[in-house]
């Protein structure tokens, strides 16, 4: 039976590429810090430049390693698909995500950013209540329970809000933002 060789996984090529781009941006900013040595001694720009060069070399080593692993996995896949899976596991790469997982992930990132933006504007209570509701929706909490599920979501969100408020504001007297829009 013919087996298709496994494709490159997310961590194998895209991550090193992202690191490469980020390092280039980092290095270009480091080069604007002025002279690397001042009076014969390393200046503020020295360390970032050393780190950038080290990162390029390390990324090269990662890529060579990835290509070697990919080749080994392809060879293993021709003999036994299970061995190929074991090799993926040994490299520490996570299995691919389903579409639903991607949607949940993007939703959590979006609501978390909205929470950061709304934290001062809406105040702790309202923003945290809405954030908790959003997170529960992302976890599909109580979705199969109809109206009871909705009530449960509201109660849990309010409880989380209350617990966190009691902990930070009441127990330790930390001042949390109040409703900024209504001030």
């Amino acid at each position, binding site marked *: 039976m013919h087996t298709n060789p496994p494709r490159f996984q997310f961590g194998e090529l895209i991550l090193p590429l992202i690191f490469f781009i980020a390092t280039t941006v*980092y290095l270009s900013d480091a080069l604007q810090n002025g002279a690397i040595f001042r009076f014969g001694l390393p200046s503020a720009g020295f360390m970032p430049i050393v780190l950038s060069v*080290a990162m390029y070399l390390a990324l090269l080593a*990662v890529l060579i390693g990835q290509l070697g692993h990919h080749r080994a996995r392809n060879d293993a896949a021709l003999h036994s698909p299970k061995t190929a899976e074991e090799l993926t596991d040994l490299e*520490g790469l996570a299995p691919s995500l389903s579409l639903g997982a991607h949607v949940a992930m993007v939703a959590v990132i979006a609501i978390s950013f909205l929470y950061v933006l709304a934290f001062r504007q809406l105040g702790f209570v309202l923003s*945290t209540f809405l954030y908790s509701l959003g*997170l529960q929706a992302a*976890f599909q909490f109580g979705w199969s329970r109809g109206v009871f599920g909705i009530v449960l979501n509201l109660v849990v969100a309010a409880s989380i809000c209350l617990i966190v408020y009691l902990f930070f504001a009441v127990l330790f007297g930390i001042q949390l933002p109040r409703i900024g829009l209504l001030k």
Partner: protein
Amino acid sequence: MIEQFLHVLGGFQTIAEPAVFGYLVGGFLIGTIFAAIPGLTGTLAIALILPLTYSMDVTSSLVMCAAIFMGGQYGGSITAITVNIPGAPCAIMTAYEGNILMRRGEGAVALRSAALASMVGGVIGAILLMTLAPVIAQAALYVQTPGKFSLILFAFFVIIISNERSISKGIVATLVGLMVATIGIDVASSKVRQTFGFPALIEGIDLMAVIIGAFAISELFVQVTGSSMEGSGATNSPSKKVKWSWRHFLPRWADYHMIGTYRYFKFAVIGYFVGVLPGAGGSSAAFVSYAEAKRSSLRPEEYNNGSIEGIAAAETANNAMCGGSLVPMLTFGIPGDTTSAVILGVLIINGLQPGPQLMTDQFAIVTPMMAALLVSALLIPITLLFLGPWYMRLVSINKAVLFSTIAVIAMVGAYVSTFSVFQMGAALVVGIGAYFMQRGGYPMVSFLLGFILGPDLEVYMRRSLAITDGSPSIFFTSPDSLFFLGLIAVFFYFMVMRPWVSSKRKRHQKNSV
């Protein structure tokens, strides 16, 4: 010598007073709870309690601080084991090994071992503090700037080679941590750098935001992507099927025997001496001890797969560090880590001047604090008996409820550490990055070590080079630096060269057969 011994006994007598003992127990519980909650630390607990010390007598203040310190070092292991989120940075290695055991249904064993190791480490650290403090403080002075640079290099080296899956990915993760640490104001020249044109980055990325992002927020993404594949429900663990009682958390002789007196003592001594070095802290103690345990282990195959010995090494060392880090603080006013820096503030607020005189003329004032360290270490397994079943229930809480609560506490925790919404956003960005790095097999431990020790590495390097007008020869001529570089060579031989040669030899023998 006899006078010193009598002062120590007097310290125990002082903490036996009901009011002082109440402060000790209260402080221990506060420290444990703070460290167990991701985003909060024992340091933060002492900092928050600092204003209260104005209205307390100096002995009670110091006793409470010591108990928070010990509880804070231990508490991080609870959520590290149960939900894979280290409450404190020093519990990272514990999370690494402990959560695997938790998912295997052996969470009680992991918690029990962590508590036992924390107790042993805490007790040995406190005894060493009481007996060796003045001598050790003198010896630590010999580790000068080039030696501190090489010590940090050594810490990086051991943690990178500990990642057997891919050393190059370990290096990349460390470099990412080092790069993030350079954002903001240059620690040596106070010049603004690496802000990419965003004024908000001038304040840099706060340690709290990085820890919260790397562990709490990224775990939220792991759970939410997992739940959409498995469906929502309680955290997936066989642990929830067992009815937990205090008996499961009662320390067994077999637990102790498995590690052995010699190894416990070795881990504690490592933790103590790392603590004595100013700036090293509990994380370095745990990392170095873990690496040494792995190098010299009779069961190396258990590492990265739920090793009790790995948990014991990290927990013994980070609790022994408590005693060590107080040595330079009490003797020279140089704090060993951030928590002892805050305790230094308590001493100064109460009109005490740390220095050789404090350890001679006013030794009786600090002995209750030393005794409190020892007694609060003994409290660790006792509190586990009562609270252990509750810790285990953390995993039977509905996943949506548990992680929504953790996410909110983490995000608000990132805010309260600096009262900056920017740091909340930074924690989120770090969390997203950490999630993808973990998926790609890049170790978070290396990233965090790079971030925490990066500024120190740079400062020590630049200061060393300033001594020799830019010549790196100082790292090879300074005896303290040579000592740590020698250790790197030893570790390289035992952890990289020897396994590589033996695997090559085995492969050769297999082929010839």
